[in-house]
């Protein structure tokens, strides 16, 4: 609560003098006059509690009695409470006034101002965001690096696995089947652990980034391989025959005729995989890499502040949304020849 204490004090005194001038020469006014003066003195000495006690002594006005002393005392109390950073008590004091005089604009405005002060968790959240963003941005860059490396590696790996599996050479198709079976059939987390923590015992020590890209690359190659194989096999067999009939080799037919026709069909499932990939990179945080998830986790543990996690969620959502959008565009482009 950053309401300036001095400002409130000066407001309090101003109100006090105004009151004294108005209260003039009524018989009861003498008591109140003294009471307000005493409370003003106490405030000046810094004894806010004492001042409050005095102000509380002003009773509810009896029928026909003047409202001004009561209203002034409660509003003064409200200001002191606000200065003490106790907005709820300040509001309660205002509400005593509003109960009797619902139209009292001073009380009403003060309540509104206090409630506005109560709200601004905004401020804290905003300043937290500003505080956390640099670390999360660094994590995001690492996450994106992992995503891009995997996107570069896995379609190639997937294509090789797909071509291997449909090959008529038994050893090759068996090997590719095995690789696919293994990497789709075990958890990515386990694969990462094996590559980063397990391989050193076989004399192979890898940097975290290398281990992460190898793990993600193999895992995603296995998934994409099955998707690509499905897409290749879904192309009408007549296409391969027509290509062969003009003298193309198997490789030429694949490269020029079959594979280009799979692009459109590939885009939706591959887009799905890559969105899953953005989130799967979070698993890499377990092998000593500080990417987005790990960065958020570190902030959360340091500040015990949930904003860090919320912010990380927002960044993941932003990335996945951008990817979805890009893939829809590519899918449309890839299938443009089907438009009549």
């Amino acid at each position, binding site marked *: 609560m950053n309401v300036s204490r001095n400002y409130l004090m000066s407001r309090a005194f101003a109100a006090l003098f105004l009151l004294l001038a108005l209260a003039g020469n009524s018989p009861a006014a003498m008591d109140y006059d003294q009471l307000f003066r005493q409370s003003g003195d106490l405030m000046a000495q810094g004894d806010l509690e004492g001042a409050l006690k005095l102000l509380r002594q002003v009773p509810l006005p009896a029928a026909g009695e003047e409202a001004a002393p009561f209203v002034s005392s409660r509003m003064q109390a409200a200001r002191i409470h606000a200065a003490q950073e106790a907005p709820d008590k300040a509001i309660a004091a205002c509400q005593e006034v509003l109960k009797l005089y619902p139209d009292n604009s001073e009380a009403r405005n003060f309540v509104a101002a206090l409630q506005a002060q109560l709200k601004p968790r905004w401020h804290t959240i905003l300043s937290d965001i500003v505080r956390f963003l640099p670390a999360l941005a660094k994590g995001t860059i690492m996450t994106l690096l992992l995503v891009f490396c995997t996107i570069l590696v896995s379609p190639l790996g997937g294509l090789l696995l797909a071509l291997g599996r449909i090959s008529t050479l038994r050893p090759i198709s068996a090997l590719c089947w095995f690789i696919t079976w293994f990497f789709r059939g075990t958890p990515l987390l386990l694969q990462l652990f094996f590559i980063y923590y397990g391989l050193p015992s076989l004399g192979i020590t890898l940097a975290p980034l290398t281990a992460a890209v190898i793990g993600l690359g193999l895992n995603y190659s296995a998934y994409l391989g099955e998707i690509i194989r499905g897409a290749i096999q879904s192309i*009408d067999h*007549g*296409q391969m*025959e*027509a*290509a*062969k*009939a*003009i*003298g*193309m*080799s*198997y490789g*030429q037919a694949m490269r*020029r*005729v079959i594979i*280009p*026709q799979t692009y459109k069909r590939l885009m939706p499932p591959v887009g799905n995989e890559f969105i899953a990939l953005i989130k799967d990179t979070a698993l890499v945080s377990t092998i000593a890499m500080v990417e987005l998830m790990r960065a958020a986790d570190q902030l959360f543990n340091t500040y015990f502040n949930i904003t860090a996690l919320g912010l990380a969620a927002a960044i993941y959502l932003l990335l996945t949304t951008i990817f979805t959008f890009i893939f829809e565009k590519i899918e449309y482009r890839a299938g443009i*020849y*089907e*438009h*009549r």
Partner: protein
Amino acid sequence: MSIVREPLLKLEKITKRFKSLTAVNGVNLEVASGEKLVIIGPSGSGKSTLLRSINLLEEIDEGTIRFEGVEVGYVTRHGKRHLDRPQAISTLRAEIGMVFQHFHLFPHMTVLGNVMEGPLTVQRKPTDEARSIATDMLAKVGLSDKSNVFPATLSGGQKQRVAIARALAMRPKLMLFDEPTSALDPELVGEVFDTIHTLADEGMTMIIVTHHMGFARELADRVIFMESGNFLAQGRPEELFSAAQGNERIKLFLNRLL
């Protein structure tokens, strides 16, 4: 020169089996250069399998194929028959054009791209040359104005004419047509037959499988009636169609078509 008298294509005792089913049963066939041969016969009689065996889309079980007097497609290693090297097979296929019932145009390439593809990728011609060949072929089939559209926008007849241009772009010595009009609406059949006629007039050697007897009668030097993997009868069209009066099976087949 003896090469001149050599038939362009000579099949000896070709047999193709699918498991227990014999689709082509020891067939002998000679096709002279410039000859127009029409094969007719009921569905499932082995006509497609025979055509596909000629350009090695099917691996035959027995027999030999000679093209320009040279045995092609198979080699014997350790007493066993094998398909020849992929390179040799591609070379043979490049000399034999094939047109399919369902066109099988490459949907991701423009019409021009489809026709250029053979010269460009298989013959490795420079782009300019491939394009000029393709442009000529499209003009020949009357589709110059469709060069830059994708096949999806064409009618069935136009698609088949593009498929013919695509085959012709390889400058084949023999053209195989497997029911080129069977997938077309009746009003589109004519334009495809006209295109084939033009080729015939230019002296192209061709084997055509079709159910259109009128077309066969007009175009064919020779008609073969095939059934159950065998040639039941063959001869000049007028011979075969009149001889058919004496052959119950051919008569039945022809009557059903009319």
